[in-house]
């Protein structure tokens, strides 16, 4: 079953947040093995969610474009628009 765009976006935001938060901690504690394991786990889940999103709803980075039709990178709504966030729970 295909996950809705808004649910997948929220998943990506959550996973990216966890990975980023851990990265900030690791910057100051680079030898914390448990934190590195947690970072890797979140990052793997994030990569899966991003791949799923990009396959169904278009690229999240310009490098994420994967197609031979039209250049979908420019397709809105862009993230700051109400419509892009309205149904994100």
């Amino acid at each position, binding site marked *: 079953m295909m996950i809705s765009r808004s649910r997948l*976006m929220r998943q990506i935001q959550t996973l990216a947040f966890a990975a980023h938060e851990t990265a900030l*901690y690791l*910057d*100051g504690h680079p030898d914390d093995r448990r934190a590195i394991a947690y970072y890797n786990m979140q990052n793997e889940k994030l990569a899966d969610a991003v791949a799923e999103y990009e396959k169904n709803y278009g690229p*999240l*980075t*310009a*490098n994420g474009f994967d197609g031979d039709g039209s250049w979908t990178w420019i397709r809105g709504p862009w993230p*700051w628009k109400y419509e892009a*966030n309205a149904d994100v729970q």
Partner: protein
Amino acid sequence: MWLYDKKLQYPVKIKNPNPKYAQIIISQLGGPDGELAASTRYLSQRYSMPYDEVVGILTDIGTEELAHVEMICAIVSQLTRNLTMDEIKRTGFDTYFVDHTAGIYPVSAAGVPFDAKYIGVKGDVIADITEDLAAEQKARVTYDNILRLIDDPDVCDPIKFLRQRELTHFQRFGDALQVAQRNMNSKNFYGYNPAFDKVKPAGAMRK
């Protein structure tokens, strides 16, 4: 270099436009303790920072602040969408409107344009990191004041997220200060500036 991620760090979905709120919140874009100042400060301080851990913290927090610039702009932009001329005049938004229409220009709530005077890059390890600690607290206070002035939950939700990030960043700059002090002379942190001095000057170790 940087690569744009086509997403907000945290959702911004404001049902009801309110130009008065926009005029207050824009301070966290172009004001003295805003996100633009934060990003510029941290990313600029990297070049003289001698410790890899601290360079990492400055790079990653400075980058996150760019995402906060975008969130503040999303809030201001959603609060000023579909305005009527009557709303613009009634709410006092006319003084901003006359110069910028509904475009987003970095100013403080009082209308003062963004200024590099808001940031410090001293090229000294302790001076720069303690500036960053203070900056996070000042931004936290501004978010507290915004929350005192605003009662729309759609607006407060992303503002609370941003406020919480100031606390986390304060913790991380605390890590940065510890890393720096570990690398410096514990008997006299001010004996020499490892961001500039190639060799410890004679007498640096003296109390």
